[in-house]
């Protein structure tokens, strides 16, 4: 039982991203920072245990969980039925404000307009799952390893458009690049969940309670404000 284990060792091990700002990246001291990191700390605090952050990539985050090297994966995971067969998901802990961005001269007001265009996206991220569902068949979705690949592909003109978080796009815009990622349309807001191993009802229940409490108390909203620059949406 993972929860008992956490309580007895007084530590919770959490997988967090370090290549996916604003959810997880590193500070100039190479320590992880971001929405997911704050979330992990919040959970640790509520559980009254020490938090051990394990930086992961999209390729190894689930194996970390499955081999019991971490207790939770807080890595802006989106749910889908296949994934739910392998791990359990908590309630949503973060909204995902993401959209399709592109330069001025490309018009794309809705998903159908992506037909025949190339769109860069980070492989396995929520926007990848969503975009794959809604984009027309002729859309050329290019899936890069991490956020940087996606952004670089856009900036170097390898793709017409990118699908990414709006904070990321804003940060890029702030640098005033030759190619400006301006919002075209928002992808359906698909919230992120925390992942944990199957058959851990106690832990699942506990984390869900913490999330619900944090929503009510406004702590979650504070994190959203800090990292996403916006309040949690109403349905949260």
């Amino acid at each position, binding site marked *: 039982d993972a929860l008992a284990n956490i309580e007895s060792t007084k530590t919770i091990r959490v997988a967090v991203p370090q290549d*996916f*700002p604003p959810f997880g990246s590193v500070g100039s001291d*190479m320590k992880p920072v971001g929405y997911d990191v704050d979330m992990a700390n919040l959970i640790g605090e509520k559980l009254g245990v020490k938090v051990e952050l394990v*930086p992961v990539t999209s390729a*190894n985050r689930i*194996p970390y969980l499955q081999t019991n090297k971490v207790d939770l994966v807080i890595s802006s995971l989106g749910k889908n039925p296949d994934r739910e067969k392998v791990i359990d998901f908590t309630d949503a802990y973060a909204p995902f404000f993401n959209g399709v961005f592109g330069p001025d001269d490309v018009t794309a007001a809705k998903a159908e307009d992506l037909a025949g265009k190339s769109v860069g996206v980070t492989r396995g991220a929520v926007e990848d799952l969503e975009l794959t569902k809604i984009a027309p068949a002729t859309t050329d979705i290019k899936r890069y390893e*991490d956020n*940087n690949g996606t952004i670089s592909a856009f900036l170097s003109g390898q793709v017409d458009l990118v699908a990414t978080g709006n*904070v990321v796009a804003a940060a890029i815009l702030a640098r005033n690049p030759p190619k400006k990622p301006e919002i075209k349309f928002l992808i359906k807001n698909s919230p992120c969940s925390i992942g944990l191993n199957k058959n851990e009802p106690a832990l699942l229940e506990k984390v869900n309670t913490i999330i619900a409490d944090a929503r009510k108390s406004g702590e979650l909203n504070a994190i959203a404000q800090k990292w996403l*620059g916006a309040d949690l949406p109403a349905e949260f």
Partner: protein
Amino acid sequence: MMMEFTTWDILRNLLLAARWTVLLSLVSFVGGSLVGLAILFMRIGKNVWLKRFAQGYIELFQGTPLLMQLFLAFFGLGLVGVDVPAWLAAALALTLWTAAFLAEIWRGCVEAIVRGQWEASSSLAMGYVQQMRYVILPQALKIAVPPTVGFSVQVVKGTALTSIIGFVELSKAGTMVTNATFQPFIVYGFVALIYFALCWPLSKSSQILERKLNVAHRNH
């Protein structure tokens, strides 16, 4: 919310991470040499089963991506309940991988020793182990130095793949910093430079050793 990194921050973090690159390289090279020697003996020995094993081993480790080997060493072992720490898994996988290549390189060197040396030592009543120990290996090791040093460059670059099991070595640090700064050219430029600074001396010394050896040979 983007982190502010100065150029110095970037370089400093990369150099700090490069320590792991160096350490992992050293570990895998030393470990790989020892295991490689063992594989070499099986490969050139007389026992058919050991020979097959060594062949299969070499085929397996030279025929699959190092990335997958690392993945399976770390998570695969975890899956069967052996909880190895990341450094051990990295050292293990890199060692086994290095060993496969070194064993092959060295086999070539042993086979380069002319048959006359085997025959002369046979006719002096030496046994197989004695021939190896006193006649063949001393000569083979000498010609093995340049290609071995040359291969160490591959080991240094191979350590980059340990990021799959959570190592923040030079390449991984580069990706992490890039994802925080979105300045791929500066970051990867530095990464390339640091790799070059690590590898080039090795390549160069391998070339120089090779040249020396050839000269020595020609003087015969």
